[in-house]
């Protein structure tokens, strides 16, 4: 598909969503869903207010911390487990099983362990993101073509050179795919963590708005989060495609 065609298709999808959104507003009224235009205006107002920023900062801080744990922990664990064949074979089904557990059920445990502060959100976000990153990294290392490693030996590469010039370039595309999935799930986990038993953050604003039946604010926050996550995913997907292009 050409670039122009891809842009055109994306524009069509966005237009369709906006049309549907507007239609729901026309049929159900402002108490069901505010119109796209009103939502954008309210989002802009909120961003302009000083009291909004501590909440945003809280969410961003929690997300970045959770992401750092998920990324470093996930790649570290995945590479270690993947490097040894037997441990990889034992660990993979365990992580796949963990992946399929609805982790919300573990939230009470997280709360008991970490309390009501930012730590619980970070832990919950990291818990969501780390598992796909482990699985992807583990498979990336396990599936490094053995002929490439043998080639490295025939050229008398040192172990460090083999890691740097063969194993890393061979595994980066697959690990990056894991990061893309992991980043999206970390955001999900962090937001879920904020929805319950928290006193700050976008998730807290959202819950407060739900209690007050403040539809405008609900829609505005949903819009901000959606824009952020779609933009992040699109950027990572584009990079992901480029990394995989030659394999």
């Amino acid at each position, binding site marked *: 598909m050409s670039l122009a065609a891809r842009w055109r298709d994306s524009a069509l999808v966005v237009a369709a969503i906006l049309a549907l959104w507007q239609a729901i507003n026309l049929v159900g009224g402002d108490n069901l869903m505010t119109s796209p235009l009103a939502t954008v205006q309210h989002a802009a107002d909120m961003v302009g207010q000083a009291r909004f920023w501590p909440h945003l900062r809280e969410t961003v801080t929690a997300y970045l911390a959770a992401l750092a744990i998920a990324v470093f922990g996930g790649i570290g664990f995945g590479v270690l487990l993947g490097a040894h064949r037997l441990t990889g074979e034992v660990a993979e089904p365990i992580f796949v099983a963990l992946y399929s557990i609805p982790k919300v059920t573990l939230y009470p445990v997280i709360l008991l362990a970490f309390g009501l502060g930012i730590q619980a959100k970070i832990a919950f976000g990291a818990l969501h993101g780390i598992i796909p990153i482990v699985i992807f990294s583990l498979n990336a290392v396990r599936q490094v*073509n053995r*002929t*490439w490693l*043998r*080639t490295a*030996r*025939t*050229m*008398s*590469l040192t172990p460090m*050179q083999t890691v740097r*010039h*063969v194993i890393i*370039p*061979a595994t980066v595309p697959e690990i990056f795919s894991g990061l893309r999935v992991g980043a999206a799930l970390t955001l999900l986990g962090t937001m879920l963590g904020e929805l319950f038993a928290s006193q700050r953050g976008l998730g807290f604003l959202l819950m407060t708005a739900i209690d007050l039946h403040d539809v405008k604010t609900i829609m505005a926050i949903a819009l901000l989060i959606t824009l952020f996550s779609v933009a992040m995913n699109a950027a990572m997907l584009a990079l992901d495609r480029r990394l995989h*292009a*030659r*394999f």
Partner: protein
Amino acid sequence: MSSDGASVHAALVGVTRVYPARAGQPPVHALGPLDLELQRGEFFSVVGPSGCGKSTLVDVLGGLAPPSQGEALFEGKVLGSTVPDGVGVVFQEDASFPWLTVWENVAFGLRRRGTDAAEIRRRVDYALGFMGLQGFAKAYPAQLSGGMRQRVCIARTLVMQPRLILLDEPFGALDQQTRLLMGDELLRLWRETGATVVLITHALDEANLLSDRIGVLSARPGCFIAIVETGWSRDRDSTLAEDPRFGAVTARLWAYLRPESLRALGQQAPAVPDTLRSAAE
């Protein structure tokens, strides 16, 4: 071994290779005992039934895996489990690195070795020209056919200026016509570099066409049951297939190999016909 002069380039002395027992399976005796002396600058091929340890032989000769017993020697030195300088290996599977361009693939070994940039450029450009790849220097392997990618791998070995080149079924994945042309290029490379070449193949006519001598391996554990000398001139090429003597050599190889191939298939092997056996000796 080194007592019989400078003409012996690489050798196997009483080499066996046994893979140790693994999870509920007995140890596998893959190879040997084998004795072999490779003359400097000769083209030696190894044929044998599938699963007879041909690739294991490459591992031992190249220092990729140490023999379980006996010794492998290269230029008078005993090999262990590192590949010595001067030995190049080309594998059956596509071993080109997909994240590097053709040029970078070929330069890979020299760069890791720290050769100076001008020398790398000179040698890589020469190797690309030699293998007919000059127009593809900036292409990535994914944009090339299987035959072209195997050329990249051969060029990558060639730039290291190996004195012993081991090829483990390098044309196994290619079609017959490409194989014949690649064979001609391999002969040209062999003549021009003066390197000793060991080719592992399952194609009898390919072994016949390219080689000075052909070692026939038995079914596992692989041992040499015959070493056939072809007697072709040094400037041979694929037109040799028209020569009536060519068919006779292939027939001789098959006469040795047929019972072994049947044995590898787990069947009862009929004896080699006497007429063919005497022709081989």
